[in-house]
């Protein structure tokens, strides 16, 4: 709660609104004990005094009543009625909406038709009609205002309830034997509460205005009692001669509504979970690089990543997601990158072209040698001509790459022309179709006018590969491109990547957590564990005999099809948290071969022939 208020207070306008509101509410609550004159005692001799005249701080009205006193009492009344109306509308509206959304079908139909009916009338007309039917009076005005606001709550809450009711935890509750009514109360309601609060914060201000409107027309509070609306109504005839009698209640209404709305906006923003995660802060186009002008070691390979360390700074914690990582990729080579979830594969891949979200990401040190320049230190303009062009990416979820509202054809054309503005329209069309053919889409014409969501996962991924190929890249970084796909589709995508690589001499950095996939596609593989590379070498050799205990355990975990007797294998324990990496070997808590040395000393990388590993006591006689 305190934290929550802190977030709200960060927003200056919201804090201002909150304080304004707090002052007004406190004053109006204190009205009975403040040394005020009686609000309803008339004294026609003193009528229309201007402020500060005769001891009346705000002057008097047309009957000589003290305006300050009437204002505070009137404010109290207006606020009470407004909040009461909001509360009533929220209660009934939410109940109706929740019932409609949860039970659905006929119940939903009946309730929502009724709500639609209410909404068919213009707002204020409906309120007027209701008051006309019930007779004037503040209480009736309250009912009218509450009634006209019920549809707003009902509709919003119904929408949220429908989403909640289809969640798996509701089904789980059903299977636990809870009755529907209990599910509604116990499972759904707590999740609705924040929504209801938000909806109330947006409407209270309006309801106060509406009640004031009714009172202004003489349909709300009846004399001598006055709320802000009726004060304004009574002052109307003297607007020109004695403007202060109108200004006083008018300014108060303005302050109340403004205070509520500013504060309400702040509350809403603070409740938005995206804000808490910091994702509303727009990331920089390029990851922060603290390596200065590190000169990369010369390299004959296409790309050489050298001592790359990428961290995330979240609150007080530092997560070492990529820890002194070095590797090289040759022209035409397919390099596999394997590791468990959270081991830093994606962060490493994104760091290559400074795509790691920053903040919170920071590239602490290291360099990426591409054509004898350090990619990490390039100015943004130069980086842009490489990122997505010469080095392009394919991601696990194609929908993050494709724009949902443009057709496949348009997206390809746009991407082509963005990179080569000299291309004529017909040239671009034929070039895009060629690209689609190269990812084994036999009939590009059928796909041209189709939107991404209309395609199956496999087709979408092919389109993404085609997009990645647009600028004849030298390196494609594929981050688990087949993880979300079915096996038969996966087989085809792997096939496409494999033939592209042969035809175009493409280099591929292929990220996966599946040794089966890696062994089919890749020449060499690097194994990551807890942010570090623990082993590297030709896939064949590593499959035959891993050097690092982790690699060898991981290979044992791969299930083998058609061999039921092959027992399932698992590595006991869990990887360490990346914000609390141990001093010695990160795998030590799960390792069968660990010795005292592994716990105390940081492990050096050893190399032999074309392999390397990071372990004091490698297995299988590799050393």
């Amino acid at each position, binding site marked *: 709660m305190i934290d929550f208020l802190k977030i709200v207070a960060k927003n200056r306008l919201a804090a201002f609104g909150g304080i304004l509101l707090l002052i007004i509410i406190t004053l109006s609550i204190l009205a009975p004990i403040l040394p005020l004159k009686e609000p309803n005692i008339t004294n026609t001799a003193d009528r229309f005094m201007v402020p500060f005249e005769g001891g009346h701080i705000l002057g008097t009205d047309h009957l000589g009543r003290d305006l300050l006193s009437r204002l505070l009492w009137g404010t109290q009344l207006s606020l009470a009625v407004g909040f009461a109306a909001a509360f009533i509308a929220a209660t009934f509206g939410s109940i109706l909406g929740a019932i409609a959304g949860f039970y659905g079908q006929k119940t939903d139909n009946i309730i929502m038709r009724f709500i639609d009916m209410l909404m068919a009338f213009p707002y204020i007309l409906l309120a007027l009609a209701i008051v006309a039917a019930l007779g004037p009076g503040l209480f009736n005005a309250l009912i009218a205002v509450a009634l006209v606001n019920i549809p707003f709550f009902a509709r919003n809450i119904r929408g949220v309830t429908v989403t909640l009711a289809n969640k*798996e935890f509701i089904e789980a509750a059903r299977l636990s*034997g809870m009755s529907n009514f209990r599910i509604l109360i116990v499972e759904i309601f707590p999740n609705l509460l924040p929504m209801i609060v938000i909806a109330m914060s947006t409407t209270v201000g309006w309801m106060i205005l509406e009640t004031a409107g009714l009172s202004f027309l003489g349909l709300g509070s009846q004399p001598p009692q006055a709320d802000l609306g009726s004060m304004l109504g009574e002052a109307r005839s003297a607007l020109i001669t004695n403007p202060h009698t109108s200004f006083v209640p008018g300014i108060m209404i303005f302050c109340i509504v403004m205070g509520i709305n500013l504060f309400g906006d702040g509350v809403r923003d603070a409740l938005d979970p995206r804000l808490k995660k910091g994702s509303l802060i727009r990331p920089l186009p390029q990851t922060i690089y603290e390596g200065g002008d590190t000169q990369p070691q010369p390299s004959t390979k296409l790309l050489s990543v050298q001592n790359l360390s990428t961290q995330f700074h979240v609150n007080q914690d530092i997560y070492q997601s990529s820890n002194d990582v070095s590797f090289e990729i040759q022209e035409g080579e397919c390099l596999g990158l394997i590791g468990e979830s959270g081991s830093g594969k994606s962060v490493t891949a994104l760091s290559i072209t400074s795509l790691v979200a920053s903040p919170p990401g920071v590239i602490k040190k290291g360099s990426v040698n591409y054509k004898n320049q350090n990619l990490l230190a390039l100015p943004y303009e130069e980086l842009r001509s490489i990122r997505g062009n010469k080095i392009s990416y394919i991601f696990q979820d194609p929908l993050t790459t494709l724009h949902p509202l443009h057709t496949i054809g348009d997206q390809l054309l746009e991407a082509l022309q963005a990179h080569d503005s000299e291309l004529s329209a017909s040239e671009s069309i034929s070039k895009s179709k060629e690209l689609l053919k190269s990812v084994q889409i036999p009939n590009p014409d059928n796909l041209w006018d189709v939107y991404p969501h209309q395609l199956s996962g496999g087709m979408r991924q092919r389109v993404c590969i085609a997009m990645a190929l647009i600028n004849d890249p030298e390196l494609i970084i594929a981050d688990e491109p087949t993880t979300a796909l079915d*096996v038969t589709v996966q087989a085809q995508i792997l096939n496409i990547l494999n033939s592209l690589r042969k035809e175009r001499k493409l280099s591929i950095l292929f990220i996966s957590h599946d040794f089966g996939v890696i062994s089919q596609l890749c020449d060499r593989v690097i194994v990551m564990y807890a942010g570090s590379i623990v082993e590297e070498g030709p896939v064949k050799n590593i499959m035959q005999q891993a050097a690092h205990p982790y690699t060898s355990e991981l290979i044992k975990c791969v*299930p083998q099809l058609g061999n039921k007797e092959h027992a399932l294998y698992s590595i006991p324990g869990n990887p360490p948290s990346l914000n609390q990496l141990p001093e010695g070997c990160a795998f030590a808590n799960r390792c069968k071969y660990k010795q005292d040395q592994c716990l105390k000393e940081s492990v050096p990388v050893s190399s032999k022939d074309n392999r390397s590993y990071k372990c004091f006591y490698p297995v299988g006689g590799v050393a």
Partner: protein
Amino acid sequence: MNALEAINLSKTYSATDGFFIKNKKNIRAVNDISFTLKENQTLGIVGESGCGKSTLARMLVGLLEPTSGTINLQDKNINQYQRQELGRVIQYVFQDPLSSLNPRKTIYQSLAAPLKYLHQHDHTQIKEKMLSIMSEVGLKEEFLDRYPHEFSGGQAQRIGIARALLADAKILILDEPVSALDVSIQSQVLNLLNDLKRKFHLSFIVISHDLAVVENISDEIAVMYFGDIVEHNSSQKIFQSPHHPYTELLVGSVPTLNKQFADIQTKHTELPDPANPPSGCSFYSRCNYRSDKCQNNKTPINSAQKTPFVSCFHPL
């Protein structure tokens, strides 16, 4: 006694269901399938996304009404069970362990629900039972006061399994029980399931797209394609010697440690349109063994629920 029996089960989502309101079509999801699950056995169901696996699972636990067909649980029709009675017989372990837990409830509250509402246990009984099951699935007592977002995928999956066990049902439907987990942890959960099955005399239906997982945990396996069961056989044999062309394709597509890119099918992989199903074999357009007969004749269905079964005119 059979734990579970499905007879000629079908589900067609009609035009009024969900968001297909505009186009008045019937969407075929599960098409006349039959099988039995024997007591203390595990039946695996494999198939690719969209083939009707989850629809089938949700019908079996009573979350979804079949369009036609019968489900018997322990030799009694599912419609004759009250909601709470049903919960004591069959339970469901959800595919996404996190979304099956209410984000605003502690683990204690989520786990207590089946004990409270299915078995009317009081507080001390609940605590006692809960702790014993939690230690069984490898969860610590201190987890009880935590909220779902504080758990890793593997832990959340164990919580889901614990909840199903607390209902004390003998039949569990497990929908993709390990697909959210890393390989190194997958086997921990699979091994746990195998142990629990022996210890508590459970019967499982395990649904997955991962052939190796299903092969490992199941006694029998049914392969689904486009709403049909196309092959049903023992888990020892089905992937070693597939008889249906689709099973063969599945097996051939699995990347294994020493396979090369040889005979992988590169023809289109799209499923037929479920609103407009083919009149003959649904695998016809992708099949390498097809004949004219396959195009227009319905392939056999397993009404007699026998194994081995192949729904093909030219089995391999």
